[in-house]
């Protein structure tokens, strides 16, 4: 068996090769559209203006647009792929427009609370950081979610977005230091 090729940083110039064409997964005015935005901070509290974020999620029925998710009970929806790519601006801010994902199966036969997977790439990150965005109104589902439950309760809150107006959520990413976002070892 061969180990994977080692990861290296995206550096500061990734936009030449990784065009940010997908921060809007659905049109902002479409039914069910939500906005998820936030700011990326480094360990000194400075905003990070050269980060790339990618999201991956199920559709509103909890179905992933992927050959390994063939559950007929959770139908695909036309045109929704579930992938988004965005970058931070000069103030370190990013924003995605998407739909709220449905609950998806957990390996043990239970369910996972609605969540969005996030990869953070940047200069100074030799490999991506992987995290998850959960939803604040899903309190019961979040309490039963197997991934959230495995996280130190003191830090769990970093994975839950904050309501930020109608159909809008705020999810800040802190790479290091106080309030550091929980990142997962995948």
């Amino acid at each position, binding site marked *: *068996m*061969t*180990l*994977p*090729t*080692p*990861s*290296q*940083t995206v550096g*500061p*110039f990734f*936009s*030449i*090769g*990784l065009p940010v064409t997908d921060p809007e997964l659905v049109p902002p005015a479409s039914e069910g559209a939500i906005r998820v935005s936030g700011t990326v901070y*480094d*360990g*000194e509290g400075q905003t*990070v203006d*050269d980060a790339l974020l*990618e999201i*991956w999620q*199920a559709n509103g029925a909890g179905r*992933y647009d*992927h050959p*390994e*998710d*063939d*559950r007929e009970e959770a139908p695909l929806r036309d045109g929704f792929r579930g*992938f988004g790519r965005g970058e931070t601006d000069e103030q370190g801010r990013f924003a995605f427009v998407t739909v709220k994902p449905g609950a*998806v*199966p*957990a*390996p*043990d036969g239970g369910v*996972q609370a609605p*969540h969005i*997977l996030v*990869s953070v*790439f*940047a*200069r*100074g*990150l*030799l*490999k*991506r*950081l992987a995290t998850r965005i959960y939803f604040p109104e899903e309190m019961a589902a979040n309490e039963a979610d*197997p*991934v959230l439950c*495995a996280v*130190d309760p003191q*830090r769990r809150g970093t994975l839950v977005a904050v309501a930020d107006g109608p159909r809008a959520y705020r999810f800040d990413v802190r*790479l*290091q230091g106080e309030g*550091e976002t929980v*990142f*997962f*070892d*995948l």
Partner: protein
Amino acid sequence: MTDAATRGGVLLGYRRETADPPYLHEDYLATRTRSPGHPLVPQPHTLSEVTGPVYGHERVVELDHDLTRRHAGEPLGERIILHGRVLDGDGRPMRNTLIELWQANAAGRYRHDADRHPAPLDPNFSGGGRTVTDDDGRYRFITVKPGAYPWRNHDNAWRAAHIHLSLFGPAFATRLVTQTYFPGDPLFSQDPIFQSVRDERDRRRMISSFDLGETVPEWALAYSFDVVLRGRESTPVEA
């Protein structure tokens, strides 16, 4: 879920062993304030991580793989073919997977507002490309050899010449962004990004090979570089 995703109805995850560098590599200054202080939280793979964006041919148009034919004229520099295969850890080809690439021009300058290296831009070179692997996992780019460039990480710091590569693979868990380097580069020893990979054998796996057999006489030299993505576990995820 399909048979490939499960064994006995239980989800199969992706292998966790990697040769990746640590997040904190002191010699690479930007890691000091951007690397997490807490250890990563181990997480079993779920349906969310074994799925992922499956992008193929719909993202690529005809000349996306040829960085030398995007403008009215040809870019300056040493024309090269960069080719290879995308495999999993067991040597199986990763078919129909998107590879995105970006690089500096032959003078070591990126076409980006943040690059202040006083080397010339080339009006005939943008430095970005993309392609999709074929049924054998093969890919092929035509480009120019990038120059080294200075980056102020330490006194008289120069990056070894490199090309950035980004791959999705079949799942969120297989996402990889890496860089490929060129054989014999004298800058390896002082490049902390290259050196951040701890094992010398693993560093060597980021260096392409000069490939005389794939050169095109009177036209271009060739370098080969295989990319290995994480392979699938053979035993189910522990719930």
